[in-house]
């Protein structure tokens, strides 16, 4: 258990009186890619936001590196090097690509700044081409790259990705997922992502969870889940992949 980087234990999260998460348990070990798949409104993004402390879990606990972060404010959680590429990307539209990346590094007093920017420009060469363009003028795929790049600038121990494939062409999704895989393999980056694109996400991940109505209904390795007939019926067949 001690090699758990992130441990979400029996977490319940409410929006007012509405229960969005009904006792969720998730474990992410160091060096893993773990995905959470599920339909719209299952509570995937809520789980992501609960890990980041906004909204905070009503019951249960979130532990990161053995430290209880359930009641911590969001910006302090981020300072533990949990970086997030949030739902809807949320890049800074009027700032340039370069400035967006700089914002990501604000925690680091810019010590590794040049090195890290180079790394991200190698990972996503498109961002290098667009570095002095305003964030809002980028295409959806480029914005997603920027959002991930900005999160990586913080040198995260855990990278949270909320639907990185949303609204993107399959080819671009492929590129982004390849980049995530490369980061995991070369640098041992731990990634937790939530996805609707079950096929691509499960193929990428070491392990996966399935969420239905605020509860985890299934879990297993990526391969197991891909082969599981229930998962296939609910999330894979009839899809485009």
């Amino acid at each position, binding site marked *: 258990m001690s090699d758990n980087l992130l441990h979400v234990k029996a977490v319940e999260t409410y929006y007012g009186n509405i229960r969005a998460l009904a006792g969720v348990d998730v474990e992410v070990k160091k060096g893993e890619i773990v995905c959470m798949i599920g339909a719209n409104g299952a509570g995937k993004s809520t789980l992501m936001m609960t890990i980041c402390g906004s909204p905070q879990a009503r019951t249960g606990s979130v532990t990161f590196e053995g430290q209880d972060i359930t009641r911590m404010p969001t*910006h*302090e959680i*981020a300072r533990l090097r949990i970086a997030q590429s949030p739902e809807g990307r949320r890049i800074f539209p009027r700032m340039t690509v370069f400035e967006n990346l700089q914002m990501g590094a*604000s925690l680091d007093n810019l010590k590794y700044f040049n090195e890290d920017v180079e790394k991200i420009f190698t990972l996503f060469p498109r961002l290098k081409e667009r570095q*002095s363009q305003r964030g809002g003028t980028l295409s959806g795929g480029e914005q997603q790259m920027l959002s991930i790049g900005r999160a990586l600038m*913080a040198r995260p121990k855990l990278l949270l990705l909320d639907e990185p494939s949303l609204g993107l062409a399959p080819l671009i999704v492929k590129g982004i997922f390849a980049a995530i895989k490369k980061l995991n393999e070369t640098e041992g980056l731990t990634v937790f992502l939530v996805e609707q694109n079950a096929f691509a996400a499960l193929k990428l991940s070491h392990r996966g969870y399935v969420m239905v109505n605020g509860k985890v209904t299934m879990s297993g390795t990526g391969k197991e889940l891909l082969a599981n007939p229930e998962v296939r019926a609910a999330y894979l067949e009839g899809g485009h992949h």
Partner: protein
Amino acid sequence: MANISNTTESASSNLMARALREAFYAGLVALGLFVLFVGLKTDQNILNELILVQRWGLLAIFVAIAAVGRFLSVAFIRPYLEERKAAKAAAPAQEAGFVARNFSMIAVIVLLLYPPVMVYFFGFQGSLKWVDNFGIQILIYVMLAWGLNIVVGLAGLLDLGYVAFYAVGAYSYALLSSYFGLSFWLLLPMAGIFAALWGIVLGFPVLRLKGDYLAIVTLAFGEIIRLVLINWTAVTKGTFGISGIAKASVFGIWSFDVSAANNFAKSFGLPMSSAYYKIFLFYLILALCLITALVTIRLRRMPIGRAWEALREDEIACRSLGINTVTTKLTAFATGAMFGGFAGSFFAVRQGFVSPESFVFLESAIILAIVVLGGMGSLIGIAVAATVMIGGTEMLREMEFLKHIFGPDFTPELYRMLIFGLAMIVVMVWKPRGFVGSREPTAFLRERKSVSGSFTKEGHG
């Protein structure tokens, strides 16, 4: 060749003919429209009888305006606009001219030379109007708008009660100098600190608010400060205001009090005049403005300034990047308020009199309008907007000739707000993002061999 010049000639004569024809029709329509409204007027004479007054002269002016306006529009303005459009399309990427590139440098030099030039042309007494009513007045608004720009333009927090901090600054100076006799140079920083504290006091309750809700609370805050000033008569003397506020001195070395031994004019053996003080004040507010600008420019490149701008763009993303939005908002309020406080204490020292009437909501609205018109976040745009708006409305006082047209009862100042509003609408239609709508990036990759010229160009400046 002869052929070409021939066609252009005939085209231009065609244009003139069309312009004249359209001008004639416009005049005709105006005559038809206005003959009963303007040309004839019913009035009561001394015997209470209704008589018909004929105003053919005024009618002629109306018709002439319509006709001449139409003629100019068809013959000159429209061809000019079309030509410019075509020229713009032909040469899209034009290198900025010398003036455009060094605009701020030139502006500072012009402002430094402004008082001596005015004195040279109008004499000491004649220059008062230009230095005081135009120069100082505009610069006060430039400073206020630059201060508000930190809150609204950079941090994106819509503040409708900015005048409260202006009032705090003004009353800090007025009260502390008249009760304790402290000097301007001591009270200037103190006024800034007091205003900054009030900025934090306002900031705390509104931390969770955004947009419209924030605007309403800040509006209320501005009114609360004003009402306190009116009703706390024991200290502030209420609506009577505080008069006889001490003048500022040149760092305590020379005074501008007539009776003082170290009077500025006496020390230099100059003839007595109030113009020295005004010119001194002009340079003082100019210095304060430049400090505001330099601090803003510096802050934008520092982590806190970047955090402000990021906060304006997306608060949730800010938090997920580890930015403490609470302190970021509070520092924005405090910094903006501090400059409002500086401007306020300057205002008190310049007027020698403060009363709650100077700090009504309209002032907040005007300052905000200047920030929006200038282009949120752009210092140069805001300075231009302040000059146009405040200078323009001051200009109205000078337009004596309008009385010859509209009669001796016409007071152009009364149309100040009307023209202010019209100008705002025109600017917003013409340039929806304000005079300078583009944002200067604060960071860019150091020039390396791999970065092409088209990228580095944007970064400079």
